[in-house]
């Protein structure tokens, strides 16, 4: 080690005896030029489409998708190549991104997304990583070509104008709305909202006393027996239940809900007259008088339908309830405000009533990236915070006037 240090010191500090200063400097200059040029050539080579698709994962999965889009070919002949969108253009960010690619090299060696199936399964992770990057930098790479300041809004279709002018005003990130512009969107059906994981783990730590009321944090199957072999229905998230007893992995809960006395009465709702789905049963069970106890019967003046207040008890897997519903709502609230405000100003929860929300929400949810579980929670959140429940929109407010004026 000492020897090495001394020879280095020698190398840098002892003047050369045989080589002239000019030759040294010129030689160093030439070496510097070549080195920098070589570095740039290497940077450029690794920033070429050919380089990206030389790996079979990119070539087999992403190239065919890109080839179907306007970013591959179009009437003007201007096109985007992989790095135009996916590699930052500034030096520092670019170098950081290149080093980040070591992770991709590792993934390639290990085969994380080696097959089409694995790729599709993993795609949501990749997409979310890229979406997060675009939302942080305001879709800077998109805007190298498509910047708001260079857009002639008058040449857009009227519908596009409305959206684009507003987006320009807010300087909004392109990918907020244009997800899946150059590749297929990930399959969101099976995707999990990571926010639920914390909810599930706090539910696992919840101590449960028999006879008290709790709220479901995830949808659960309901069973007739404590061994949980005979499935009779399912219960929705945020539904209140009274825990009767806990045996092993199973928990017997009592549900006190409402249903329409029409058809089989399979779907149970949390409130009289409001279509807030809370549980669903198999039809023979829903008709079984020994299982379902009808406590009360009321007619909904709005629809003329007869509603029954019903109660029943069933078994479900333990560890999925919390003593407060608020953590569920805070996830829903966060999803609602982040997903909906992307394209428009989201309405107040209490702007609509509980029976209007499902139709509205069902029409819009397809434009968002919510997975099924999140969508259900958000809808329920909206319904239970709708004008039917809101104190600020009490009698006399325009909304409640509208609601009572409903035919």
């Amino acid at each position: 080690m000492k020897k090495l240090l001394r020879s280095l010191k020698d190398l840098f500090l002892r003047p050369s005896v045989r080589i002239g200063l000019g030759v040294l400097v010129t030689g160093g200059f030439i070496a510097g030029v070549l080195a920098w040029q070589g570095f740039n050539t290497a940077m450029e080579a690794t920033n070429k489409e050919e380089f990206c698709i030389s790996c079979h994962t990119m070539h087999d999965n992403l190239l065919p998708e890109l080839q179907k889009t306007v970013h591959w070919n179009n009437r003007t002949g201007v096109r985007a190549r992989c790095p135009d969108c996916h590699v930052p253009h500034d030096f520092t960010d670019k170098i950081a991104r290149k080093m980040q690619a070591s992770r991709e090299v590792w993934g390639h060696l290990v085969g994380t997304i080696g097959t089409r199936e694995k790729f599709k399964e993993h795609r949501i992770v990749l997409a979310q990583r890229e979406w997060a990057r675009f939302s942080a930098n305001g879709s800077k790479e998109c805007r190298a070509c498509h910047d708001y300041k260079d857009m002639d809004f008058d040449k857009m279709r009227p519908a596009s104008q409305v959206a684009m002018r507003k987006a320009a005003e807010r300087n909004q990130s392109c990918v907020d709305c244009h997800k899946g512009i150059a590749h297929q969107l990930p399959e969101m059906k099976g995707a999990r909202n990571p926010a639920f994981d914390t909810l599930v783990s706090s539910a696992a730590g919840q101590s449960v006393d028999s006879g008290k009321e709790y709220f479901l944090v995830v949808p659960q199957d309901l069973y007739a027996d404590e061994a949980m072999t005979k499935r009779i229905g399912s219960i929705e998230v945020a539904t209140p239940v009274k825990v009767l007893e806990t045996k092993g992995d199973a928990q017997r809960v009592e549900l006190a809900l409402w249903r329409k006395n029409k058809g089989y009465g399979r779907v149970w709702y949390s409130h009289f007259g409001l279509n807030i789905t809370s549980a669903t049963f198999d039809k023979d069970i829903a008709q079984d008088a020994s299982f379902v106890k009808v406590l009360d019967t009321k007619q909904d003046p709005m629809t003329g339908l007869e509603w029954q207040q019903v109660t029943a008890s069933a078994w479900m897997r333990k560890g999925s309830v919390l003593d407060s519903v608020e953590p569920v709502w805070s996830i829903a609230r966060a999803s609602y405000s982040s997903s909906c405000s992307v394209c428009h100003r989201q309405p107040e929860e209490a702007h609509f009533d509980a029976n209007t929300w499902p139709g509205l929400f069902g029409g819009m949810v397809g434009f968002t990236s919510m997975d099924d579980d999140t969508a259900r929670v958000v809808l329920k959140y909206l319904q239970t915070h709708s004008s039917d429940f809101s104190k600020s929109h009490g009698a006399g407010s325009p909304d409640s006037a509208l609601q009572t004026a409903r035919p």
Partner: protein
Amino acid sequence: MNNQASGHSAPSGAEASGRKSEWPRFLLLAFVGLPVAMTLAIAAYGFIVWFLQILFFGPPS
């Protein structure tokens, strides 16, 4: 660069060997050693920025 340097360095007073190996040392340092050092430095810089992004800054804005 190191091999070269250590290969040479043994006798500190041996001017003759110093003179002989001056050219190879110069060429190796200029065309191999320093370019490699530059690449490593840039890679290290990239990694540092990346780790800072993971830990503190989040993705570049």
